[in-house]
């Protein structure tokens, strides 16, 4: 009676061992913003909060944040930004920086389009961000370092999530058990 199930069990076990947990993306965007022209620096401002919901039993395994220095609101003005550094998690992780007068971020690009930037979180960053993932909210702030105005295009947080290992394994075992039981009932 057990004979026919042995290959199935071996096959299923191999599937469990080789299966790659499902991946999904969650994204959140902070709209573009035009700052206030200021002479007094450094000055730190929160530009907004990314909000998201990580499904129960899922974990964040990777993430990127991207945006542009400047935006397209007013050509020749808001398409650039003041010298500035951009952070998430209450200033714990710097994700972008506009640090030189000759950089396109503040000097302007050849085409006049805003200068794009992107940052990929490291494993260490993800550990730091774990409480924010649990809370479903991550702040995004800027420290302006020199005269000018901080202008940003839409800033997008993209998180890659996957089921947590324990729940993933549990799900696989349940599936396997289901297969075995079904075969038994069919034999019976």
């Amino acid at each position, binding site marked *: 009676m057990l004979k026919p199930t042995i290959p199935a069990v071996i096959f299923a076990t191999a599937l469990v061992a080789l299966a790659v947990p499902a991946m999904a993306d969650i994204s959140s965007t902070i709209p573009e913003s035009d700052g206030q022209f*200021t002479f*007094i620096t450094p000055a730190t401002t929160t530009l907004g909060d990314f909000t998201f919901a990580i499904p129960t039993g899922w974990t964040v395994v990777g993430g990127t944040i991207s945006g542009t220095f400047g935006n397209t609101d007013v050509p020749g003005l808001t398409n650039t930004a003041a010298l500035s550094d951009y952070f998430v998690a209450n200033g714990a992780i710097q994700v972008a920086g506009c640090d030189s007068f000759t950089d396109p971020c503040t000097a302007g690009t050849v085409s006049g389009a805003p200068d794009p930037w992107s940052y990929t979180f490291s494993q260490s960053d993800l550990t730091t961000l774990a409480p924010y993932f649990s809370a479903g909210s991550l702040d995004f702030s800027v420290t302006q370092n020199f005269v000018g105005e901080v*202008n940003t295009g839409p800033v997008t947080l993209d998180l890659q999530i996957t089921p947590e290992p324990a729940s993933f394994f549990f799900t696989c075992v349940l599936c396997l058990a289901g297969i075995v039981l079904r075969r038994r009932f069919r034999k019976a």
Partner: protein
Amino acid sequence: MKIELLALGVCAALCASAPVMAQVTWSATSSPIPTTLAGGPWLLAQGGPYVETAGTTTTGGPYDGTTPYCTPGGALGGTPISNTPVNPMQPFYFPFVAGRGLTLQGYFDYRPRDISEAIVSAASADGGQTWTFQQQVENLNAVCPQSDANGANGNENGEGHPNVVSFGGGGLIYFLDRRNGHADFDGLLVHTLTPKAGLPLNGLSSLTELGPPTVVASPTTAGIITQWNMELSPSGMTHPKPNIGSGTANPLGMVNSYKGTVNCSPASSCNFTGSVNNEDITSTTGGTNQSYSAEAWRIRGPSTNTGGATGNGWNTQAPQYTQGAQFLVSTSGYHNIVFEYDWYITAQGARNLQAQYTVNGTTWINVGPLYVAPAGGDAYYPQIVINFPALGIHTVDNNPNFGVQLVSAYDPTFVGPGTPCPTTACTYTAAKLSSTGAPVQLNNNSGNWRFDEINVLGTPATANTLTFPTNTVGLTNPDGILVSAPNTYPFKILYVDKTLNGDYAYPTSEQCGPTPSGKAANHDIAQVRAATSSDGVHWTDQGAVNGLNNTTTVSYSGIRYVSPNGSLLKLSTGNWGLFFGAGNCLDGDSDSFHAIAYAESPDLINWTVINGINNPIASVSTVTATDPVTHQVVTIPSAAPVVGATQPWFSGRVYGPQAAWASSNTVNLIFAGYDAAYSADISDYRTIGHVSLSAAGATLP
């Protein structure tokens, strides 16, 4: 004798064929066209068709035209109406255009004659050929005309000549206060910009605030805390005093008793027994100050000469960071501190410079990279900038003990006697390299460093407490901003200083006479000047620029006047290119509208006109008259304008050129024009035009 003559001839030929930095040659790639505006306020075309009788418009126009300025018609208690749907862009002038490529942002002076004046913003998606209305602000009034001429009741003297000075994503907008008694006397009106999408003039008032400005800024020195311009120091002076602000400049380490021959070869040439100070001010042209009479502060220390060499060089036995120059300047009341300087190195001067700063007067900290002299020496390294806030250094703000010293350092690249040193570099080298291009040991006989144009800059702590709008302080009789240097802080502008009726102080031979058409002579003086500011309100005048115009010329071929709202381009040659409105005694007016001219400069101060009155980019109608200087009959312009034949809509005035980058060798030129009969014909004046130009001789980065 023949040989000498031959040699002279050869030399002259060589000199004549010496390489000259290429200048841009412009050509038109389209014909000039009047642009159009979609939406916005009432436009001239709505008042047509016009009928002119004996020089006066009798039918059509803003009072009783097809679509009058006000509804219900005329002056009968209506309100101003809008432009619908699309019409030629009149009556606008003094454009200011920002942006690159096809997507442009325009700010325009809307000025229906004898009715009102306002600032209008519009956007273009085709490089400035067509515009879409965005906002109208600072309206002088909302009156309706009493007649088509409306001369008796009209008022068009509000806020005009818009010009945006931008930096780091933000900016300020400047207007001329055109009211009688204010124009060309008061400072320019300054407003902050808080732009939003589609609302570039967000935050500005719908109606003008004319009357007393909200706040008249107090006259304080801004931008430059302290400056040493050695040309302004008497020759031979030691410990030079600043020409702006206060502070001390002292040679560092020139008096010493370091002895020995360590790391010095051959020993016979560098067996020193200490140095003495021998600083002075000496003629050194180059760097920032290109004038013939430029001078610099020379730092040198001859040997005390008990067996060593006798030159004026520095002591090779002194530890690094101990010889150079030291500047102490209090930054109390300022932040965003920037230190700038020109560094000149002789061939035998020390090759490496390290800047250091202090916040307590005793501890010195390296800042910025190790600078290497230009290969060969005897050359300037102009305007080295230490931008402290950009480096994240704010301890120098508001600090009475701030200082910078510029000191010689060992050459980490040197390989030779004494190297490798135990741990770090320990040998000075000279600016002049070996025949193979390798650094050679400093011989200590004659080399020195020189410094000039040392600026300590900062933002006054009061900058963010200014209340806008306000008036500029420090600009002399400003008629408007000509151009601002892009991405520059402190802000740097060229502006038009107009002295009304100022040339009566000139000899008669330097005053304009009546124009060939009989129009009365104008007696204003228009001078282009440079100025800097760290808050956009308080400006430090940097003096008149050279070469754009001659305020005393009465030649019909010369440029006597320059108008605001020109346009600046950075060229691949390193030069700046400038389009500007130019005028002269042919016009009977100082508004500088005879031609659109083009000039180039390496430094924004010294200009060479390439396209002038006689070979302009664009010109009003041809004039043939007897020149007051040569007494010859001349035709002006003598050569065809770059854009081709003059068209009726700019045959009376052409100015306000705005060159918007379109590609690496083309620009969209947006400008303003009047027809020739504008004084009587109110149907065709203040037109915004467009033409495409192509550059040869340089590219546009």
